[in-house]
C-alpha cells in the first residue's frame, strides 16, 4: 500500500499525463499543485496563478525569492522567462474567457452528473470558493485529482449532498484507484490501478461505475 505522499504523487503523475503541449493550465491548491512536478519532459505547459500571472515557476525553494511574488496559496513563488503579470480582472477573464485549456482541482464530493462540491461544509468548514467557481465554469477541461475516499467514506457519489461549487462541470476524475470519465451515460471507469480489483473500486464508490470495454491499467 502507498502512504499518503506516495498516493498523492501517484495521482499527480497520472494527472500530468492529461496535459498537452502548449496548454495553459491552472492548478488548485494542495494535491493538484504537485502535478507541475510530473509534466512529461517532451511537452511545454504554461501554468497560471489565479492571483495574477502566467508562467508560474517551480517550487519556491528552487528559485530566487522575490517578496512581491506569491502563488495562489499565498506562498513565495517565482515567474519563468516569458511570463506575464496582470490584475485580477484580467486573470479571471483568462479563466472565464475560454483561454484556459485545463484546470486541476481537488474536491470534497463529485457526482455522476459532473457536479462538484469543494468549498464548504455547512457549520464546520467554510473556507470559501476563492477562484474555484470561475475555474469550473470557464476552463475547457476540468480534472478532479483527489484521493478516492475520505476516511473510508466515498467521495464519488450518485449525487453530491454538500453545497455545490458548480453544476455539470467535471470531465475527468483521477484517484489512486482509477480514472473515471464523466459522460452523459454516467461515470465510466477507463483505467484501473492494478493493485485493486473492479469490485474493490466499486465498493469504495458511492455511484454505479460503468466499466469501459477496453479498461486499461493505470500507469
Amino acid at each position, binding site marked *: 500500500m502507498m502512504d499518503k505522499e506516495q498516493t498523492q504523487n501517484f495521482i499527480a503523475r497520472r494527472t500530468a499525463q492529461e496535459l498537452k503541449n502548449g496548454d495553459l493550465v491552472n492548478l488548485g491548491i494542495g494535491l493538484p499543485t504537485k502535478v507541475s512536478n510530473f509534466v512529461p519532459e517532451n511537452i511545454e505547459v504554461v501554468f497560471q496563478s489565479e492571483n495574477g500571472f502566467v508562467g508560474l515557476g517551480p517550487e519556491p525553494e528552487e528559485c530566487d525569492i522575490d517578496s512581491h*511574488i506569491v502563488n495562489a496559496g499565498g506562498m513565495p513563488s517565482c515567474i519563468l522567462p516569458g511570463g506575464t503579470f496582470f490584475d485580477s480582472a484580467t486573470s479571471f477573464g483568462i479563466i472565464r474567457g475560454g483561454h484556459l485549456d485545463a484546470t486541476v482541482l481537488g474536491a470534497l464530493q463529485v457526482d455522476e452528473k459532473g457536479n462538484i462540491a469543494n468549498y464548504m461544509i455547512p457549520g464546520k468548514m467554510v473556507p470559501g470558493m*476563492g*477562484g474555484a467557481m470561475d475555474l469550473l465554469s470557464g476552463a475547457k477541461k476540468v480534472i478532479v485529482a483527489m484521493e478516492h475516499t475520505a476516511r473510508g467514506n466515498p467521495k464519488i457519489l450518485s449525487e453530491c449532498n454538500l453545497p455545490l461549487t458548480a*453544476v455539470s462541470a467535471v470531465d475527468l476524475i483521477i484517484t489512486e484507484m482509477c480514472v473515471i470519465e464523466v459522460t452523459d451515460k454516467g461515470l465510466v471507469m477507463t483505467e484501473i490501478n492494478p493493485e485493486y480489483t473492479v469490485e474493490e473500486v466499486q465498493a469504495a464508490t458511492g455511484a454505479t461505475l460503468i466499466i469501459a470495454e477496453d479498461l486499461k491499467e493505470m500507469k
Partner: protein
Amino acid sequence: MNKLISIEEAVSKIKDGDTIMVGGFLANGSPEKLIDALVASGVKDLTLICNDTGFVDKGVGKMVVAKQFKKIMASHIGTNRETGNQMNSGETEVILVPQGTLAEQIRAAGSGLGGVLTQTGLGTKVEEGKEKVVVDGKEYLLEKPLRADVALIYGTKVDKFGNIYYSGSTQNFNVLMATAADLVIVGAEEVVEIGELDPNYVRTSGIFVHYVVEEGL
C-alpha cells in the same frame, strides 16, 4: 500636484460605518502599514470588500482580529480562523463571492457599467436572490457593481501625483479598487518625485488616486 500625506492623516479620513476596499491577495499587495494604523485607530462597524481576509497577523486579517468589521465580502476566508469564528457566532456577516465575480463587480463600478453577466455560480448558493438573464440562449447571473467609500490600495513605487508601478503579483485587486471608491489612498513602498516613473510602466494612473502615504519597505 503633491498628494503625499501622513499615515495618521490618511487614517483619520476613515469613519465608523464606512465601506472600505482593501487591495491584496493573501496580503500580497496589501497596504500593511495603513492596516496597522487602522487597527490602532479603533475605527469600527466597517464593511470590508477584499479578495480574502488574509491571516490573523498579516494583511487585512489584523482588522478582523480587532473586530472592526460588521460585514465582510470576500472570495476566501479559510486562511484566517478568526473570520470563521465571527461568522459562526453571528458577530460578523460574511458574504462569499466568487473571485472573478468580485473583480468584475468592482471593475464595473469603476467603469460606469450597470453590472456584469457571468455564468460563474449558476446552480449554486451564489445565484440565490439574483436576477438571471438569457443572452443568445445562454443563461447568466446579473452581478451588480460594487463601490466603496474608501479604497486602501498598495503600490510598489508611487509618485507624488499617485501614479503607481506594481512589482510582481501585487497588481491583483489594487488596479480595480483604485477606480471604484469615493476616496482612494495608496500605501507606497517607495515614493518618488513626479516624472521619475516611466509612463510606460505606470499601471494605475494618478488621476484615480486622492492621497499617497509612504509606508516604506
